[in-house]
C-alpha cells in the first residue's frame, strides 16, 4: 500500500449528501464534499424551514443527519490550540464522525487545521500511543514546533514528525524527527494517531494532498483498520531514522 492507494480506496466509497432546505443556495454548504463518488442532491422544504443535511451510504441507507449550521461550522471553523479548545460541542465532533472516511475535494488550510487541532487535542487527552505527523515543508513544521514539543514532552505519546530536507529543525525534544527525501513526504499532509490501548477506540487520521495552492483534497477517518494500516505503512517504510 501507499498513501495513493489508500486515497483510491477511500475515493471509491459512495455517499450521498442531501440538502433539505427552502433554498438551493444552501447547496454551497456541502460543495467541499462533492466528488466523483459523493453525490449531492437538493430536496425542497417549505419557506422558513431550518435546513438540514442527510447523509446516506451507497445503498441509500441513512448514515446520519445534522443541521446546516453544524455543517457550516465544520467548513468555516475557528482555529484554536488543542489544549485551549473547550470541549467542542459534541454535535460538531459527531458530525465529523458522520463524514468519517468521506473524501473532501476542496478544503483550505484553515479548515484542515481545525480538524488537525481536534485530533491533536484527542491525542493530548489520551496521552499515550503513537503519533505520526507529516508536514508539507520545514517551515510548516517549524510553525507547529511549540505544539509538538508539548505533545512530546508532556505526555507519554511516542511522537514522530516527518519532513523533507531543507528548513527542517535539527531536533524536537522528546520526538523523533524523520527527514526524508521520498516524494510522498511533503506531498501529503498527514496525521496518524494510534492509542496505546486499541480498545479505547480513539484512533484517528487525516490524509490530505494540496492539489492547487491552498486547495486540499483528502479525508479524515476514525476507522481503526485504516488508521492501523496507515501507521503500519509509515513504520515499515520509514522505520528508524
Amino acid at each position, binding site marked *: 500500500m501507499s498513501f495513493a492507494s489508500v486515497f483510491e480506496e477511500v475515493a471509491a466509497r459512495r455517499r450521498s449528501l*442531501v440538502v*433539505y432546505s427552502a433554498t438551493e443556495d444552501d447547496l454551497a454548504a456541502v460543495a467541499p464534499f462533492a466528488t466523483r463518488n459523493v453525490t449531492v442532491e437538493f*430536496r*425542497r*422544504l*417549505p*419557506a*422558513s*424551514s*431550518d435546513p*438540514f*443535511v*442527510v447523509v*446516506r451510504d451507497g445503498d*441509500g*441507507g*441513512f*448514515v*446520519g*443527519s*445534522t*443541521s446546516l449550521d*453544524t455543517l457550516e461550522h465544520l467548513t468555516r471553523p475557528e482555529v484554536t490550540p488543542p489544549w485551549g479548545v473547550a470541549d467542542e*460541542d*459534541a*454535535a460538531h465532533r*459527531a*458530525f465529523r*464522525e*458522520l463524514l468519517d472516511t468521506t473524501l473532501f475535494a476542496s478544503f483550505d488550510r484553515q479548515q484542515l487545521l481545525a480538524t488537525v487541532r481536534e485530533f491533536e487535542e484527542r491525542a493530548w487527552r489520551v496521552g499515550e500511543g503513537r503519533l505520526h505527523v507529516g508536514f508539507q515543508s520545514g517551515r510548516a513544521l517549524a510553525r507547529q514546533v511549540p505544539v509538538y514539543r508539548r505533545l512530546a514532552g508532556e505526555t507519554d505519546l511516542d511522537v514522530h514528525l516527518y519532513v523533507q530536507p531543507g528548513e527542517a529543525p535539527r531536533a524536537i525534544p522528546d520526538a523523533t524527527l524523520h527527514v526524508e527525501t521520498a516524494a510522498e513526504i511533503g506531498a501529503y499532509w498527514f496525521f496518524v494517531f494510534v492509542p496505546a490501548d486499541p480498545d479505547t477506540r480513539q484512533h484517528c487520521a487525516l490524509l490530505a494532498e494540496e492539489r492547487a495552492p491552498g486547495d486540499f483534497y483528502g479525508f479524515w477517518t476514525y476507522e481503526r483498520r485504516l488508521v492501523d494500516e496507515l501507521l503500519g505503512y509509515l513504520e515499515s517504510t520509514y522505520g528508524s531514522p
Partner: protein
Amino acid sequence: MSDREPDSRRGLDRLDDVDDAVFAALADRERRAVVYFLHEHGTATVAELADVVTGWVHGARGVATSDDRERVRVALHHVHLPRLAAAGLVTYDADGQRVELATLTAAEEALVAWAADVDADT
C-alpha cells in the same frame, strides 16, 4: 394572533370546520413535519419521511444518528402515519411504502398554514 396575516386564517372561520382528529393529528411536531413535507412534494416514501422527520426534528439539536432514525421510523409506522390517515390527512399505497397528502379542505389548509407559521417562528 393579532399580528398574524389575515390570509392564513382565510377558510378557517370556525374551529368546528376542522375535525378534532385533525387537531389532534397536528398537535405533534413529527406529524406536522410529515404534513409540511408532503405539502411540498405531494408524495414520499416512508423511508424518506423517516429521514426527513429525523433531520428536521432531531438534527436541529446536533447530529442525529441511525438509532434516532430507527426510533422515528418505528413511530411513523405504528403511530404517526396511522393517526394522520385516520384524520384523513394522508393516504397510504397498498404496500404501505408510499404516502400521499390527501386533498385538504380549505379549513385544513388554513390550519396547516397557520401551524407552519408558528413552527417557523419557534
